Structures are given as structure tokens and as C-alpha cells.
């Protein structure tokens, strides 16, 4: 009987395969080299291809869309900031009343696609009652989770809301 080839089971071989795989895939969190080499044209094509899939909106999302919370502007806010996404034109205006480092009241206005409208609503609920320093540490990933998840091509909506929040807090 021919001798079985057990070379693949050695730790050296396993390490070599792992290294080859890592080289193909890039470091964790980074796109692999063949993707990083994509031209802007190819990257836009990838974005368009992903954009053609339909959007799954959760119950939380639909609730905030039809019943947005904290809509409006404050007559005498502590701080107001407005951020605009230069690519798609989405806009979010956030006004806050902050006393003793606590965000007591938050109101928002938003223009843009539904994820932008919803992100503002969910964000204001998340930050009311929090300290300003605590709110400053909120990330778009946390906001996306609170919204109930968003498709990749709509993550910009959560980023826009967080940018508006940070613009507010950085000015006090």
C-alpha cells in the first residue's frame, strides 16, 4: 500500500497555508490585495452592483420612519450643528440643550433617504439623558445596531448623524 502523504498535517505546512491565505486576503479588516488594486472605476462599479439589491427595513426602522421622535428645532439651544453628505446631498441638523454636561433635550431635522431620517430619530433617543462625554463616544456602528441594521450602502446615514453629534459636542 502506498505511503499516505501526511505532509499537509504538519504544523509547518499548516503555517505555510495560513500565510498564503493571509497574503491573498490581506490583514484582518483590510480588503485583499486584488481588491485594493481596484481602480476607482471598478470600485464605483462594485458600489453600483451592491446598490442594486433591495433594502430590508426592520420593524424598528419602519417605526421610526412613520413615527419619528424629537423632530424639530429648539428655540434656545445650547448648540446646533448641521452636516451634509456631499455625495448624495443628505443633510441632518441637530440641536441640543446641555446642562451640567447632561444632554437634556435633543431635536433633529433631516433631509434625505429613509436611513438618514431614521438615524436622526434613533440618535436623539440614544443621547437624551447621557452625558456629553458619553455621547461623544457613540459610534456609527452602535447607531446602526440601534436602528436595527442597515445595508452597507446606507451606512453613510448613520455616519452623517454621528458627525452632526460630534460637531455639536466639539463646539461646547
Amino acid at each position: 500500500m502506498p505511503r499516505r502523504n501526511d505532509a499537509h498535517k504538519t504544523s509547518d505546512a499548516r503555517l505555510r497555508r495560513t500565510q498564503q491565505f493571509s497574503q491573498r486576503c490581506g490583514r484582518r479588516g483590510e480588503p485583499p490585495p486584488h481588491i485594493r488594486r481596484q481602480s476607482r472605476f471598478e470600485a464605483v462599479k462594485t458600489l453600483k452592483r451592491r446598490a442594486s439589491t433591495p433594502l430590508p427595513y426592520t420593524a424598528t426602522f419602519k417605526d421610526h420612519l412613520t413615527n419619528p421622535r424629537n423632530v424639530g428645532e429648539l428655540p434656545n439651544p445650547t448648540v446646533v450643528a448641521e452636516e451634509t453628505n456631499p455625495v448624495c446631498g443628505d443633510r441632518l441638523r441637530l440641536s441640543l440643550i446641555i446642562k451640567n454636561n447632561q444632554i437634556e433635550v435633543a431635536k433633529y431635522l433631516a433631509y434625505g433617504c429613509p436611513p438618514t431620517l431614521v438615524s436622526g430619530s434613533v440618535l436623539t433617543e440614544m443621547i437624551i439623558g447621557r452625558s456629553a462625554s458619553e455621547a461623544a463616544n457613540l459610534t456609527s456602528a452602535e447607531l446602526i445596531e440601534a436602528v436595527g441594521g442597515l445595508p452597507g450602502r446606507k451606512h453613510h446615514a448613520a455616519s452623517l448623524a454621528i458627525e452632526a453629534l460630534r460637531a455639536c459636542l466639539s463646539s461646547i
Partner: protein
Amino acid sequence: MSRSLTANFGNPSSVHSFGQQARAAVDRARREVAALIGARQNELIFVSGGTEANNLAIRGLCEAVQDHGQHIITSTIEHPSVRGVLETLEKRGWEVSRLPVSEKGIVKIEDVRSALRPDTVLISVMLANNEIGTIQPITEIGNLIREQRQEGHKNLWLHTDAVQAAGRIQLNVDELGCDLLSLSGHKLYAPKGIGALYVRRGVRIFGQNVGGHQERERRAGTENVPAIVALGEAARIAREEIEQRSIEVRRLRDRFEAEVTRRINDVVMNGDRDLRLPHLSNISFRYIEGEGLLINLDPQGVAVSTGSACSSGTLEPSPVIRALGHNDELARGSIRFSFGKDNTEEDVDYAVEVLVAAVVRLRELSPLNKTLAQVR
């Protein structure tokens, strides 16, 4: 159609009796579709829809005539399927002149005349725009081409995308003077996935689907008999009811627009008020974004489409609305309402109520109509 799926299941290319029954059904459908546009039966090619018809027309013609010239004239408001195939040809060395439209969304015949060159082989202008419904001067362009041919510019052809217009307004390919015409089944209440391309007798195109003898060797592949039968029936009914349908949907559309303009401020009606299809209404709502409005209308049972970038899946707002000279905000805030043969006055009144409520809600939410307060 059901009969084609069960009893009449033969392959039209087969010689046996089952196949010949299917062949007869396809021929009957072809006669009906041809009658809808005033064409001869053998001038029709069944395809999978409007997109394939546009691809076959433009690519098929250009590949056949490229030795005579490589310049194409089109408009800035064509359907994405036409824009896409022209962009592909540009990458292969073709030149494309994209004519602007007026603020009412109509191509000017003077611009077509000015853009003509000795090496122009194709003019592709849609018969009616799918977003704003404006009807283009295809008959005038056809006359212009006839003049050009008489003056010696013989290698010049006219294609028109009639997907949105077929079954809505009377069409006759001889009156239009077109050499190629695309139409799609689902705009005629036939199933999705079926369409037809009219190719005037004597015009040569290269098939894009090859490897079979179907459709006179211009579009290989076993025919989608059930869908073709359905398209034929839909074409027959459309031809019989076209006048009645046109009057009725125009009345509903006009009622809708009158109510909208009466009850909602800061709206812009897009497209010429007269030279347009009877069933479409395209309106831009200031200060709000189209997809947000669409998603607010959908749960209420009102289904519309929008020219906003977010919804289209591209990074740009509707190029059609932009071509009218409007800014990005109006393009993003545009909604297309389409009225069909089964809509009623009650549907229109309900849609207006739902729309008013949604617009009020979104405008309350919008920062665009509120100045940014200065913080103390």
C-alpha cells in the same frame, strides 16, 4: 397563455404537430403586435423585453454598418438601457452626440440637424420619455432622415425606444419613419420578460444572440411561447381599447395634478403639459427627498417611483430631471405617478390624501425650508 403552458407546449422550431401548433400561436401573436404599430409580421423580432430590444437594435445595427461611419446621435433623456449600450460603443471607439432637451423635456429638431455629420449612421431618440412622458419629434426626425437620404446620405437610420408609448398612443412605423422600434410587454399589461423589436424590411442588423435560426436568424433561442402569446393578446386588446384608455387615464392624471397643485405648495410639474403621454405625471416636491416620500407612501398602498439617487442605486439623481435644467434638490425630490386602466377616481382621491399627509410630515422634518438658527 395558460394553454401555452399546458396543452400547447410544443417548440415552435419543431417540425411535428406539437411544434407547429406552437408556431401558429407565435405567428398569431406576431400579427397582433405588428398591427399595433402598423408593421409587417416579418419585421418583428420577439425578445426578452425593452432592454434587449434596445441592445439588439443599437448594437445590431452599428455592428452591421460600422464601415459607413461611427457616429451616433441621441438625447440626454434616454432610458438607461440605451445609455448603457451607447457607453459601451463609445469605449469601442464610436462617437456619440447627446442632444440636450428644452426645459419642457423635448428634443429640438434644429439640434438634430446641427449634429448630423457625414459619418452619422444612427439617430436613437426615444418616442416618449419613461419618467416625464414627453413625446419626442420622431416624425420630424424621420422626415429629416428622408431628406438626408435623398441628398445622398444613405447610410443613416432611425431607432426609437417606444417602450413607454406603445399601447398608450397611436403608433405607425411608416408615419414615424423609423427603421427600428423597441417595445416591451409589461407596459402593455403582458407579463414581464417579453418584448419585441421592429426592424424595417431591408434594414440589416447583426444578431446578438447567435447559434440558432429563430427569428430569421436575428435572435437565436427557443421562443418564450407563453409570454409571446400573452404579448400578442395584450397588443390586440391595447389596439382595440387605446382611445378609451387614453381618455380615461388622462382624465385621472389631470384630476390628480389639479388636486396636488391646489393642496400642496412648492411643487414643480416636470415636462411639457401637452406633448406627453396621457398616463404619467412627474412632480418635484421641494424640501423633501424622493425615496423618503416613496417609503412613506408605500405602506399606505400607493406605489410610485422616484428620481432620487438613493433609490436608483446610483450616486446621481435623475439625469432626466437634471436635463430639464433643474438642480439636484428638485431632481432628488421628483416622483413619477403612473395611472393605469384599472385605476379609479377613488384611487386618485385616496392617493392625493396620502400624498398630502406624507409631504406635510416630511417637510416638518426637513431642514431645507428652515434657516439655520444662530446659536448664542
